[in-house]
């Protein structure tokens, strides 16, 4: 038990950082209705850009800004592959992810790892000081959630929501659906890259393999988080906070599994199993446990049936 409490602060800090990434995934997956596989690459891009620039002596805030912009550019690329060239969104994401592997290697100067060990005093957070790392991550989450909350209630933000919710309706109301998809993917991957930049600082390095399977961790955080937050209050801010909470829960499960002694080789599989469970259980429940009751659509509670 003692060992568990020792690992808890680290799990919370990492979970929050991955929760920020999950907010990015939430925007593409839940709001735009696109399963965007760019994130596996763009989180690594964020880490690489930030690490290389900090090592080069650039102020950390500028390095993080550059990381966010690089992530946004990756999102734009996926968006354009999808909307301008007609490539299915899931394939567009895979293609960008592959492109980013080469780009990330180039950013790291051909090495597979860039260490920040010599730049400790420049960094915003580090795994050697978990309470401070949690504080930095929490402030980042708070700023991000408020910014997104404001944005998604602007004229532009509302059309971004409608683009994912009903593209036919959006076009009929004069919304440029293609441009909105590109914009949304840029925002989503910018946020993912921000998480990458924080992660590189926390771990003290950027590795070319960072981010492999990130999309699955993001989805796991979303499903874990929404399973609770939708029951509390189904609104935007609560959902975003829930998603970050989902990231934390995911990392606590992760650290418990390591403590139990599961080989770390199996952790990617574990992430996948969590996602499978969260997707399969509601489906199977619907298949097997609602046979008696006719499936009732949520139409018109307390309204007039004959409009």
């Amino acid at each position, binding site marked *: 038990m003692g060992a568990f409490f020792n690992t808890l602060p680290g799990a919370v800090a990492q979970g929050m950082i991955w929760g920020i990434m999950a907010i990015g995934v939430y925007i593409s997956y839940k709001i735009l209705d696109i399963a965007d596989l760019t994130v596996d690459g763009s989180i690594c891009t964020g880490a690489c850009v930030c690490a290389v620039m900090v090592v080069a002596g650039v102020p950390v805030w500028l390095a993080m800004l550059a990381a966010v912009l690089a992530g946004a550019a990756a999102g734009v690329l996926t968006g354009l592959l999808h909307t301008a060239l007609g490539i299915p969104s899931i394939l567009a994401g895979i293609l960008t992810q592959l492109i980013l592997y080469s780009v990330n290697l180039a950013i790291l100067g051909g090495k597979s790892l860039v260490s920040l060990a010599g730049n400790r005093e420049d960094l915003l957070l580090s795994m050697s000081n978990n309470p401070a790392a949690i504080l930095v991550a929490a402030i980042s989450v708070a700023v991000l959630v408020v910014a997104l909350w404001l944005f998604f209630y602007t*004229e532009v933000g509302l059309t971004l929501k409608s683009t994912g919710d009903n593209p036919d309706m959006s*076009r009929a*109301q004069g919304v440029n659906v293609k441009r909105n998809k590109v914009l949304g993917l840029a925002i989503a991957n910018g946020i993912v890259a921000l998480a990458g930049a924080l992660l590189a600082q926390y771990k003290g390095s950027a590795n070319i393999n960072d981010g492999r399977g990130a999309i699955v961790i993001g989805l796991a955080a979303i499903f874990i988080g929404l399973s609770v937050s939708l029951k509390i209050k189904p609104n935007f801010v609560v959902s975003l906070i829930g998603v970050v909470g989902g990231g934390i829960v995911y990392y606590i499960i992760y650290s418990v599994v390591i403590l139990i002694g599961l080989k770390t080789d199996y952790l990617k599989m574990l992430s996948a199993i969590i996602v499978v469970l969260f997707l399969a259980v509601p489906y199977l429940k619907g298949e097997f446990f609602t046979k008696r009751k006719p499936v009732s659509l949520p139409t018109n509670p307390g309204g007039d049936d004959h409009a």
Partner: protein
Amino acid sequence: MLKVTNLQKTFNPGTINAKTALNGFDLHIAEGDFVTVIGGNGAGKSTLLNAIAGVWKPDYGTIEIDGVDVTNMPEHKRAKFLGRVFQDPMKGTAPDMEIAENLSIAARRGTKRRLVWGCTRKDRENYRSLLAQLGLGLEDRLSSKVGLLSGGQRQAVTLLMATIRKPKILLLDEHTAALDPKTADNVLKITEKLVTEHKLTTLMITHNMHDAIAYGNRLIMMHEGMVVVDVSGQEKKRMTINQLLDLFEKASGSAFSSDKVILSK
């Protein structure tokens, strides 16, 4: 107001499934006209409306709205001229967004969307009074997700969205076909009220012969991508369903056939 000239559209050209939906279609509609459109299976009614709305480009021909050639204008750009209601009640509204948010998006149709509050308190007051006029009790449910509404309620909201910013042309694509008769009647009444109130130029496809005669000031029947019957004014008002079917048979050389059209009241 609307000028469609020599419009042609063939789907799957050059294949065994080639289907000419519009075959040199001409139509002029004057400002303030309320035109009902009726026709059998595959007559090209929906193709016509989708061509006007810009869902796809015609193979040949031009479309002018209020003197502007929109033939090559993308769908979201020409939306500023149009109000649209679809056959599928699910298609016209965003289900996961509030009624007020849906109306907000529609109210800014054709304007440049900015980074300012997208649905203000003043907007909400305005929507409340507009919704009250529908008589469905929706004015107290501004913050409800549209997905919670019934099909008829959603069509009524879509109608309000289509007309909240006065369109040059209102396009109604069998917008009551998916509703039960009583609800359909109600939605049609709302339609007529909005059209009259805002003096809207309207093109309404319907599957109901009686409605086609009862509503609007001009009626066209389509057959194989052409207009075969075009009556208006007093002639249309006095028309009976049987007379209409006779006219159709004479003009098209075949009996009216459709598995969907409701011939009697």
